[in-house]
């Protein structure tokens, strides 16, 4: 994912591997766009989306998952996610999302 983001022009990218570390990274870096996997160790991506949006109501969170679970997508959108990407993603889908949601 990082490699793909770099390839489409995002060179300042941070990565986190759990709910807690993601929140720490978010507080520290305040990224313009956060890609949140719906399946995380510990809490799930909907909880993380909710936590990020409660920290910053203007946060741009993009939910990601390797399966399309409509209930989960709706929950993540209700929690504040702006969009959804199916994994593995690709340059076309990613560029489209970035165009839509980045400044």
């Amino acid at each position, binding site marked *: 994912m990082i490699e793909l*983001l770099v390839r489409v022009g995002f060179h300042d990218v941070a990565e986190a591997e759990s709910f807690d570390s993601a929140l720490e990274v978010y507080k520290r870096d305040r990224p313009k766009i956060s890609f949140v996997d719906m399946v995380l160790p510990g809490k799930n991506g909907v909880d993380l989306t909710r936590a990020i949006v409660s920290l910053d109501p203007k946060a741009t969170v993009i939910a990601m998952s390797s399966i399309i679970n409509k209930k989960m997508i709706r929950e993540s959108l209700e929690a504040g996610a702006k969009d959804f990407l199916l994994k593995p993603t690709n340059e076309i889908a990613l560029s489209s999302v970035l165009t839509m949601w980045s400044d």
Partner: protein
Amino acid sequence: MGFLPRKTKVKKSEESGLGITRKYSLTRGRSYIVEESPPDISFDAFVNIISTPEAGGCARSVGLAISRQHPDFIRQKYGLERTPIYWLATRTGQEVIAPTNLGILTHTLVGFIDENPCAVILLDGIEYLVSNNEFTKVLRVIDQVNDHIAQTKAIMIIPVDPRAFDQKELALLERNMEKIGRPRAA
């Protein structure tokens, strides 16, 4: 008296919207080839188009998927609840099309497009069709459906594993179709 072909009418149904944005901007009345394996981009585009609203004449698209992968697996992975899915396999059943029965395959595709001018067709399993038929016969099916699509607002997406074809066959497949780039996945 003639025989009515099987699967004369595919029951169509629209997927409920996901509330996400359209990520693939494919032109209506065109067919697209995606050189990839596994067919991730093709399925992503298919699901995205039939699950998102569109400006213009096709506010809502109705999909039809034909795949070597089992319909239950596709429904589960891609959350498709209402889209008709046919399995390319040598089994009997309502949702099965035998790879050797190119007539039924053509009839199913053309019939669906006639019924749904805004149809989105995913034809996955060309390699399997070619392993059961001569390449030229499979190409004829694609060309026939392609011609039909050109007269409607339908879209057809065909994933192709480039390792399964030689250069001449790939060129013939690409001849009347647009190519969706082959970006690397992540």
